[in-house]
């Protein structure tokens, strides 16, 4: 390797090294707000994704539940195992966010619990688990598509809880 080539070689890798330092600067934001990364402790290892690098939002591609979401509330209420209104002091919002894959299957469930002022709170475990189980049982998803290409997407359902009772279920 002659001297010129050696200098070019060193320069090239110096630039790459500087560039990688630059790109590895930690951002406080994920690649996309709301991304749910795989968690081996709670997520199914065999959950299939058409394209793991491109899970879009349900409203971008029209992912819905049966009857354009009309069946959502009924099916959840049917799936709920617990008697409502057990703990009268519980009020606030429980949001379940998850992935509907390109086959209409679901996984990567995450639960967000907030009080009536939208501040963090912990609801009674039985209520949260009952709601989560009911959502996991939903099996009539209509997978959204972009130009006939079906895609994986994120979905969310918010439960409004007033005095221990579910007052509304909203996509």
């Amino acid at each position: 390797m002659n001297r010129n080539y050696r200098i070019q070689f060193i320069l090239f890798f110096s630039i790459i090294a500087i560039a990688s330092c630059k790109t590895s600067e930690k951002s406080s934001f994920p690649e996309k707000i709301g991304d749910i990364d795989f968690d081996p402790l709670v997520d199914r290892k065999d959950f299939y994704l058409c394209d793991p690098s491109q899970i879009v939002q349900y409203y971008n591609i029209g992912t819905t539940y049966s009857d354009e979401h009309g069946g959502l509330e009924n099916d959840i209420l049917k799936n709920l195992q617990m008697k409502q209104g057990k703990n009268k002091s519980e009020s606030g919002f429980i949001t379940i966010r998850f992935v509907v894959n390109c086959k209409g299957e679901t996984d990567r469930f995450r639960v967000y619990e907030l009080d009536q002022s939208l501040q963090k709170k912990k609801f009674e475990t039985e209520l949260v688990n009952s709601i989560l189980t009911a959502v996991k049982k939903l099996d009539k998803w209509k997978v959204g598509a972009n130009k006939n290409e079906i895609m994986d997407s994120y979905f969310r359902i918010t439960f409004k809880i007033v005095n221990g009772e579910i007052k509304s279920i909203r996509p």
Partner: protein
Amino acid sequence: MRNILILFVLLGFQFLDAQRNCNMYPEGSPCREACETGSLASRYPQGSRKNMELYTKAAQKCPSFAPAWEQLSVPYLKRGDYLNWKLMIDKAVALDPMNILGYRAACSYEFIHDVVSALNDFERLDSLKSGHLGYNPNGDYNLRIMKGLCYRDLGKLDKAIEEIRLAIEEGMKEGGGVGTYDYLHLGVSYLMKKDVDSAFQYFTLQIPLYKNFPDTYYYLGLCYKAKNQMDLAKSNFEKAKALYPKNHRKDPYVHMPDQVYLSDIEEELSSLNTSN
């Protein structure tokens, strides 16, 4: 590359936000820079890292630049992270209540169904503004209609009707006209009050505003059913069912108030068929 292009197409509409006139801020001022950074941020997909970083930078340059906080809040709202949404939108509202309070109220109502917070905001907005309160984010609703619907959800039917009627009057007087769903909500409110004749009157007024809207015929069917005119009830439910596939409400984000689903119509038809 193809995937990137698809994503670009999917999210393209989101690039249109925040096109504002930065010349309103003095040249070289931090707020002018913040505004320009915000314009740059809006070129990236909403909620993407770059988009969020640039809006954060804009907010740091000029902490009183409310649009940066507002734009930072939006992806959290749409993706169900209401804790972070509230952190951001509260800052925006504190800086510019006249322009952002109504938006926060509409989002609380539509996305979270947080009727109490939404109503507090609507009432505060009403005390700040005189007359028309403005419109919800997609422009379908005079905010006063939503204020009325909040009263209704809290069981205050008379107050709800009063507010919805006022909104319709305002729309007529102030040039915006009657909103697409105003008479429908007024009719449903009367139906909830069991005043079927008034409900019928407003559903009839709703028809010329949106001729092929299946929900109107569904609610007319309920009026006829309440009056025990089952043949007319059935024909209206059938009309609603026929119109449904091409004309039903389909908000991409949320369930809208008084929205009718095909299963609601079919349930009514099936109950009529069973009782015959």
